[in-house]
């Protein structure tokens, strides 16, 4: 891994890294300069790489006493104007849910990486996609969230940069739902010239010419401009239901609904801009294979074989964004289908919004589960052949 001696940033070009390292490097290039974390298999490599690299680029790293405080650090850093990230695995992800809920209500940009492992409980230390519903519904209360699903080392880099951009653009916590598979594998990473990497920063009241005396911390726009501590805006961050000016008294059901509905719609109304998916072989397909994360790697291999060796008219879709769920994009792109196959490293989770989205567009949705290990092409193919026999 080579870095520029002047600023210690990764040199543009080809690198060969673990997904974990690519993720930390993406964060650094996106501008992350505070990292807080706690050891947990299989996410520890991200933290260790961050511990190594953050001070090299003038950032600060701290290992906290648990996952709750690690996530809490991100709040203070973000409010003080610095991009911040933590990485954990499934049990730690459970611990962070209160902080995520709080970040949603206070509209605080931050990035949390969940390198999923099987559960429930201590489960195991291999790979999993069992937290994908928790990503959307694990935080108490309403409010939507953004969750991305990387499938390669390149994705671990690109999607981390994207996660920071989305967090800043939409003033929200963003989750990178990785898996042990993609965190531990080594592959080529191509880093573009730094000037070509798009970086998004939050809009501040100064950017919009709003002076402190006219500033409404939760007002002015669907995504309110965000004041940074230390710049004279006297911003009070609160997570109790609030007025646009930050007042937390004078409660009314109307104020409550306006406050929380705006935060919900801020994400859900903009799903077409936020959510992305990739599709192949949709034209003329009768059946569809929908995958996300590392399972997409097996999925493409299986789809290629099913199409070439058995002439099955099988289309393929990879969800790059899990939440907000791209229902309308999915419906717009697929023809009427017979069978939709959804292989997941869980017992069937994303199959539910998929089924809802394609309820009147396919005959049936078939789940192909695997727990604790990545699907082999044989596992997916044998199920497809069996169901379509």
């Amino acid at each position, binding site marked *: 891994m080579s870095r520029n001696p002047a600023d210690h940033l990764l040199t543009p070009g080809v690198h060969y890294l673990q997904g974990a390292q690519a993720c930390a490097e993406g964060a650094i290039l996106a501008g992350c300069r505070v990292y807080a974390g706690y050891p947990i298999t299989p996410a520890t490599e991200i933290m260790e790489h961050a511990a190594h690299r953050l001070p090299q680029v003038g950032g600060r790293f701290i290992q906290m006493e648990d996952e709750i405080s690690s996530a809490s650090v991100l709040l203070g850093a973000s409010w003080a104007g610095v991009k911040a990230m933590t990485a954990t695995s499934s049990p730690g992800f459970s611990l962070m849910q209160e902080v995520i809920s709080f970040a949603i209500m206070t509209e605080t940009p931050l990035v949390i990486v969940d390198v999923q492992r099987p559960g429930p409980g201590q489960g195991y230390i291999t790979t999993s996609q069992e937290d994908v519903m928790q990503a959307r519904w694990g935080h108490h209360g309403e409010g939507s969230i953004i969750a991305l699903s990387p499938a390669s080392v390149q994705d671990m880099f690109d999607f981390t940069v994207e996660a920071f951009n989305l967090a800043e653009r939409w003033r929200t916590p963003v989750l990178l739902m990785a898996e042990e598979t993609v965190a531990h594998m080594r592959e080529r990473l191509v880093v573009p010239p730094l000037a070509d990497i798009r970086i998004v920063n939050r809009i501040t009241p100064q950017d919009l010419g709003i002076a402190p005396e006219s500033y409404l911390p939760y007002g002015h726009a669907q995504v309110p401009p965000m004041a940074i501590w*230390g710049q004279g805006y006297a911003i009070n961050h609160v997570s109790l239901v609030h007025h646009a000016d930050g007042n937390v008294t004078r409660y009314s059901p109307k104020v409550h609904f306006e406050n929380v509905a705006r935060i919900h719609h801020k994400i859900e109304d903009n799903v077409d801009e936020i959510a992305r998916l990739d599709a192949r072989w949709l034209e003329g397909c009768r059946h569809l294979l929908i995958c996300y994360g590392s399972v997409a790697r097996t999925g493409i291999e299986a789809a290629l074989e099913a199409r070439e060796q058995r002439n099955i008219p099988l289309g393929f879709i990879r969800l790059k964004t899990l939440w907000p769920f791209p229902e309308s994009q999915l419906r717009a792109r697929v023809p009427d289908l017979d069978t939709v196959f959804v292989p997941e490293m869980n017992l069937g989770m994303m199959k539910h919004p998929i089924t809802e989205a394609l309820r009147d567009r396919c005959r049936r949705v078939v789940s192909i589960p695997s727990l604790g290990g990545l699907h082999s092409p044989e596992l997916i193919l044998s199920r497809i052949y069996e169901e379509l026999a």
Partner: protein
Amino acid sequence: MKKHPMLKYLKEEGPAGPRLPLIMCPGCGVGQVLNYTLRAVDTVIHEDGLRPEDFVFISGVGCSSRLASHYLNFDSAWTLHGRALAVATGALLANPKLKIIVFTGDGDAAAIGGNHFIHTCRRNLDMTILCINNGLYGMTGGQVAPTTPLGQTTTTTPYGNVEDEFDLCRLAQTAGATYVARWSTAHPHQTIKTITRGIRKKGTAFVEILSQCPVHFKTAPAEMFRGLKKSTVPLKKAGRKETQGRIPVGEFCDIDKPDWVARYQKIIDRLGSDESPHE
């Protein structure tokens, strides 16, 4: 009528309406602590040349933490129960120039926040922790706390508390805080002076302020006040036979030790001059 001199530091009014009076109960000590804190901040602003925008107030959840809800004409955050110190850690690591003051309570700091409390002290992170200790959980109706005395009845110890209480200052000192002091709302001048010293201290300053909760102790505020004075004893008079059983107040320690950011900065400086391009 003349305005209270510290009102300049509060947000009295906003587009959605008035924010004062504070929501605290009549006779509560939390409002007094706000007054003492703002006077300390005012001193530091005028004598040390700091500006209001240099300060950040961070609180957890509870009566004490309400001070940093929407009243302060400073940057602030009303955060999660027990996690204010972790949030403060993040702000400090992002911008070490911020002067961070944390409002917390005894339950917030020593029960749910206990882990973060001891690690913050151990790390000697530069911030001023003001722990308003009323000996129970006020906001939720008067439950037992780690600082409730043995035998005390509360809503969750209806037959009397069977646990001993924490000595929060001893805890802070043992954990590594470099400035540790305790006063009470009944010691206004000492408290103001101590908070001022805490703000000026480079490192973790922990100031415990014993405070009255007239509502849950079902005792008139003036009587609680007299009680605070009677039940405490200045350090130099503590340990004598006639002051046994009284809570010592004063400064327990004031030591100089490099703070976390200073130590980490040495690493940043060393690496910044390292020219080698490879891992």
